[in-house]
């Protein structure tokens, strides 16, 4: 299976089908035994923790079902955190984070802590955090799993926009409506690719 730069892909399958494992491998969170994973021309296997951390920081942005924001940091600090590990100064970090919050319409919420925000807001903060390092890939694991249908709509809208910026976007989901929004749907069953459907009508 190849995913080109800038593609908008969803991976579907029942639980236990191996979609999360696949996402973990793609996100270099997990190692694998058979086959090979080539990212941006580099073979990714048996990397040291330090190397994989550097790749993750540089190339991959994560979005999780449960948002995974750090509870004792406010919105701005959460968004800025990946830049901290990139070694960017606080002033610049906060500037950039504010910029991204602004783009996602959360500017006035910057000083709020995650438990003061709604699910949709939290996910948007998580998206801002994923985007801030300017990654080549966004990996979203059930990004709408904890959201109601209205906010699901909003979040998918955002992810589509993200993809329009040219960032490869891969979404793992079991919701058909979510998968419909993407341009390519891969079905997994028992760890094997069952189908790989590309939609050719661009005007969604």
């Amino acid at each position, binding site marked *: 299976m190849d995913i080109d730069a800038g593609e908008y892909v969803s991976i579907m399958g029942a639980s236990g089908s191996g979609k999360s494992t696949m996402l973990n491998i793609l996100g270099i*969170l997990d190692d694998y035994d058979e086959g090979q994973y080539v990212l941006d021309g580099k073979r990714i296997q048996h990397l040291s923790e330090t190397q994989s*951390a550097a790749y*993750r920081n540089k190339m991959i942005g994560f979005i999780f079902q449960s948002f995974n924001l750090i509870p004792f940091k406010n919105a701005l600090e959460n968004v800025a955190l990946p830049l901290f590990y990139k070694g960017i100064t606080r002033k610049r970090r906060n500037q950039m984070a504010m910029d991204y919050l602004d783009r996602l319409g959360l500017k006035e919420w910057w000083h709020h802590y995650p438990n003061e925000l709604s699910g949709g807001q939290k996910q948007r903060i998580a998206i801002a955090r994923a985007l801030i390092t300017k990654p080549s890939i966004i990996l979203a694991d059930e990004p709408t799993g904890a959201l109601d249908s209205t906010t699901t709509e909003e979040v998918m809208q955002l992810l589509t926009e993200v993809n329009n910026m040219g960032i490869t976007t891969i979404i793992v989901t079991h919701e058909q409506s979510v998968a419909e929004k993407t341009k390519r749907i891969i079905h997994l069953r028992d760890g094997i690719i069952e189908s790989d459907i590309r939609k050719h009508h661009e005007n969604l």
Partner: protein
Amino acid sequence: MFDMDQWHEIWQTITRNKVRSFFTAFGVFWGILMLTLLLGAGNGLEKGMLSNIEGFATNSCFIYTDQTSVNYQGFRKGRRWDMHNSDIEVLRANIPEIKYLAPLLFGSRSENNTVRGEKAGTFSTRGCYPDYAKIEEQKILYGRYINEVDVQESRKVCFIGKNVYEALFQPLEDPIGQIIRSNGIYYRIIGVGSGLSNIQIGGRSDDMVVLPFTTMQRTYNQGDIVHFLAATAQDDVEAGFIEDEIKTILKKRNNIAPEDERAVGSFNIADQFKTFGYLFLGIRILIWIVGTGTLLAGAIGVSNIMLVSVKERTKEIGIRRAIGAKPTNIVGQILKESLVITSIAGFVGLSLGVGILAFFDYMIQNLPTEEGIFLKNIMIDFDVAITASLLLIVLGLLAGLLPAWRAMQIKPIEALSEE
């Protein structure tokens, strides 16, 4: 290494989790507080004890006579004997290691034996040489101590202790030249003083009427007998050495068997002083063991709570890892957190301890009575504080080691899948 940004991150983690940080810090805070208080109290005890013997020549020994315990040269054992003036001269001539030699005579003490006009008191008398003031230093309140001329001419003068003065005179009354009667004989007062130390030789010198030695020998019909001998060794000689020399010469001159252990009694302040030294060394070692033990327990507490905290923060650490934190970032963070918590807790404990000590020191210094003070300068030394601080930093790092290692083991994938 020193990156303000990183410290900011750590500071934030600590301050935004106040309860957790507080409990982590408390053990170390308590440990260092206890160590400080113990050390301060130990110091105070030592200084207090030392101030008791301050003003007393510690390199001194004291000689007195006793019954013989060995038959020798036709004398039966159990004989009583006396030291004489001639013995003193021989000792002075033959033992150059003696710095001061002060023969003493003790007088009798009876009810209201010391009288001036309407006032009377019960006080001991003692015959002294001027040298004695060098062995048991006197704080002179009025006039002067006994001098050589007083002794040579057997003047009927006396030097009285502070308490004698207070019993016989109105406050602030000038005693110099006044006449008092002691055991029925009249003496002119030449000075008033108070013993600097709390060591007593034949009674407190504050409760003493001191006469020139020769005056005492005459008025009490003692002939040329000496009751007691106080001697101080030269600075580079041990008191024990002159003690033995003096005893040897005295035995030879008074027909006492060299092996007779009882006939010449003696004691040696230097030996007692040495025991004192060991006692304080022991106390100090004990304090450090207890104190560092408490501190260590505190550090283990830090380590323990941080372990729990790492467990609790698995998810946070996983998130950090997922968004690009290297394992070294995480290890560094945990270590620095531990370091910051122990340091702050330690310095707060240290400061509070010093504050409490300073408070007690102030209280004690302002106690109305001068007597019975066994604590003085309750404070820790600056270098002890530095040592404790360094110890803290090392402990902080050690305490963080295990939790940091644990944190490094956290795989982001496991941490994130933990819902």
